[in-house]
């Protein structure tokens, strides 16, 4: 075992982690621990753009953006946070441009902007051009630009280090963050990082679904690490299903395709979104579009022999426009489907895309131990966190924005904290939990296989807690997950070695997914209403009287060692917008 000491430790090297690292490295001795090489993060898969009311191409302002974000989140958004997001969006985009990001340009040479779902002028009047973009590879450009600037600033990376445990020490009755424990993939060695401040920026957990746009590595490691240490997870029942994943594969096709004029059609060629969202049509918010697609499919208007998908039609757009604005997604259609988007519509279906919930933080990125108490020295930003700026449904282009605004904020706040704070003493045998977990998996002689349990988990999640949910389906999922958690105790791996043991890490990741899937299902069962991404067929309406509140899920361990989930609730911060019926 090795012990390292840093002022600030950042877990994850995607957009939020690297944006935080650029700030933290300037202010404190910082290490970034990442299970992938920095440019491998799934930020790079984001396509369509980053929202900011620059008003470069038409009238716009941050107040309209705030409203759209609040409405898009079905009023579960904390409005003070949304206001910060929309206001700081403008400088965030300009900062990236100054760092070198090659945005597409207008004829005047300013940053070009395009339409995106749920973004409107003057509180829903018409779609507005707010998304700043670089073709359909905006996330790639952000990731590369941030890594380039990390190289420039000399950020210290520990590549292929898996953070498996969060260390907490009680000081004068207050639980503080003391550091993290990491597993080095190359050697199998355990590393303890003592740090004054820790920032989680480790991304989402979409891999508990089968059809998903998420990378294989998005397994909720950060959420699971803090949850196991008794800290809450907020709003985990809210998961976004992106309307346009490649049929069966789930690979993302950007909403920018509809921003550029693409149209969704059913098997009769009908532009069905006109029925569901007369004003915004194909650019209604994602939860609305995904439900509309599944409604078409359920009512027999789906495409293909099994009627299980619909079409994204780009054939009326000039090939030059597709080449200039949507080169990557048209290539995906050619590569993975053998389809030529110039002439043929693309089969799509909703795909599990984004966790609105996560580790609760305030607007400085400080992690919360309950509804109000900050955990000293612990921070989170990006998809792993829940500020909450996305509420019950995130708007497209607000995630690339989130990682930049709150990654920066968390980086500054954590580094300023570590400048003045002292190191907290490490707990006794800080590595013990990780060593025990690793040894148990390595030495297990059980008869369960990781891949089989993961497959069953993904199938039950797709079948029971996806776009449409009922008490019955969620209960089925809860029971299945409990069974899988039990069987996980008998999971065995084949690779017993120390060197690059990805077999072992996949087993660890499955454990994280199982914990988080359970939190999601239990939180969803208790929310007897429909709001944003959480749609209950047995409770089809939003219920502001009983459920205008954030879910807070805590892991409880009884005296006999049995685990359970305790749910609590946190009020939503409302400032200027009163909840209204949500129409697009």
């Amino acid at each position, binding site marked *: 075992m090795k012990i390292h000491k840093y002022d600030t430790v950042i877990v994850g090297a995607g957009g939020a982690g690297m944006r935080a690292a650029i700030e933290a490295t300037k202010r404190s001795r910082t290490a970034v621990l990442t299970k*992938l090489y920095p440019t*491998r993060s*799934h930020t790079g898969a984001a396509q369509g753009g980053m929202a900011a009311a620059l008003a470069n191409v038409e009238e716009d302002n941050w107040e309209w953006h705030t409203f759209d974000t609040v409405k898009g989140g079905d009023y579960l958004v904390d409005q003070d946070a949304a206001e910060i997001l929309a206001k700081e969006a403008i400088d965030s985009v300009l900062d990236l441009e*100054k760092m070198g990001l*090659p945005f*597409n340009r207008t004829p005047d040479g300013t940053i070009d902007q395009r339409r995106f779902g749920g973004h409107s002028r003057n509180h829903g009047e018409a779609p507005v051009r707010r998304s700043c973009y670089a073709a359909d590879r905006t996330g790639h450009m952000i990731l590369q630009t941030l890594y380039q600037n990390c190289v420039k600033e000399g950020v210290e990376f520990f590549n292929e280090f898996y953070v498996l445990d969060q260390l907490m020490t009680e000081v004068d009755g207050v639980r503080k963050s003391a550091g993290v424990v990491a597993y080095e993939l190359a050697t199998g060695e355990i590393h303890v990082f003592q740090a004054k401040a820790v920032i989680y920026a480790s991304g989402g957990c979409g891999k508990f679904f089968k059809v998903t746009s998420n990378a294989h590595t998005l397994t909720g490691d950060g959420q699971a690490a803090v949850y196991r240490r008794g800290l809450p997870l907020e709003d985990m029942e809210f998961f976004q299903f992106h309307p346009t994943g490649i049929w069966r594969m789930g690979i993302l096709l950007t909403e920018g395709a509809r921003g550029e004029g693409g149209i969704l059609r059913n*098997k009769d060629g009908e532009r069905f979104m006109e029925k569901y969202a007369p004003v915004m049509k194909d650019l209604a918010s994602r939860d609305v579009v995904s439900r509309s697609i599944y409604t078409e499919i359920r009512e027999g208007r789906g495409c293909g022999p099994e009627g299980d998908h619909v079409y994204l039609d780009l054939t009326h757009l000039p090939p030059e426009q597709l080449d200039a604005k949507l080169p990557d997604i048209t290539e995906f259609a050619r590569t993975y489907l053998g389809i030529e988007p110039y002439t043929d519509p693309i089969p799509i279906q909703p795909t599990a895309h984004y966790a609105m919930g996560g580790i609760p933080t305030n607007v400085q990125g400080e992690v919360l131990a309950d509804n109000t108490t900050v955990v000293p020295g612990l921070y989170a930003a990006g998809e792993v966190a829940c500020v909450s700026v996305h509420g019950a449904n995130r708007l497209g282009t607000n995630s690339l924005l989130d990682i930049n605004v709150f990654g920066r904020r968390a980086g500054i706040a954590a580094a300023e904290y570590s400048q003045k704070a002292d190191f907290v003493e490490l707990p006794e045998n800080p590595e013990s939990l990780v060593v025990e977990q690793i040894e148990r998996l390595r030495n297990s002689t059980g008869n369960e296989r990781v891949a089989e349990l993961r497959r069953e988990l993904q199938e039950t999640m797709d079948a029971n807690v996806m776009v449409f949910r009922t008490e019955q389906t969620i209960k089925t999922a809860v029971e299945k997950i409990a069974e899988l958690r039990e069987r996980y105790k008998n999971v065995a791996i084949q690779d017993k*070695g120390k060197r690059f043991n990805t077999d072992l890490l996949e087993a660890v990741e499955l454990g994280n997914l199982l914990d988080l899937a359970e939190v999601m299902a239990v939180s969803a069962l208790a929310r007897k209403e429909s709001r944003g991404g959480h749609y209950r067929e047995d409770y089809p309406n939003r219920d502001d009287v009983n459920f205008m509140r954030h879910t807070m899920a805590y892991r409880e361990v009884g005296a006999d060692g049995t685990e359970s989930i305790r749910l609590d609730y946190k009020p939503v911060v409302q400032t200027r917008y009163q909840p209204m019926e949500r129409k697009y």
Partner: protein
Amino acid sequence: MATPVLDKADATPEPGFADSPYITVTFRVRRFNPEVSAEATWQDFQLEIDPKERVLDGLHKIKWDLDGTLTFRRSCAHGICGSDAMRINGKNRLACKTLIKDINPEKPITIEPIKGLTVLKDLVVDMEPFFQAYRDVMPFLITKDTNEPTRERLQSAEDRERFDDTTKCILCAACTSSCPVFWNDGQYFGPAAIVNAHRFIFDSRDEAGEQRLEILNDRDGVWRCRTTFNCTDACPRGIEVTKAIAEVKRALITRRF
């Protein structure tokens, strides 16, 4: 009826997803694990697979159902993250962007680690020398402004287009590890680093082009390129790598960029 009817949806099965029977293919994989043996060996696996699946899907079938010790890097699985460059039937490709049907499944499909970088286990190589070469070309925007502009820097669409091709790089190392010069001399910067230097040299906002050109004028710089075009063939992003290298060479001679 204002909306066109896509009648061919019912008439013919879609081009990529007709119901196709699974076929049997052989994956011949280069295995190496110094914890077990100092020698690398070939191992064959028989797989039932849909020809429209990816090579990465085949590797996952092996790892998940047959042999958990098989080790490779992967993440996004659709050609964006750059983790899974490997040598498939003798050519550098991303396993997640290569469909079985496109590489002649009649014969065994050979899968090896990319060349020129030290193999650490199975298909995993040491990426550090690759990233070091990248860092050495100063891959970040350098400007001499004493006062940062309040708004964005202006750039015409034409100036933006000038370096568009090289912004697509995902640092997968498929190009660099396909280069015979790099195989013989690991000191050579390699195509990927030059591509990333190009991305800044030809960015109208950047003011350190001369410095980068001097770095690449070095004995391990662009002049080592022998124009074999392996890099261009290997690039999974379709970047015209050899052309970019030629533009850097030309800029070194003319000092115009």
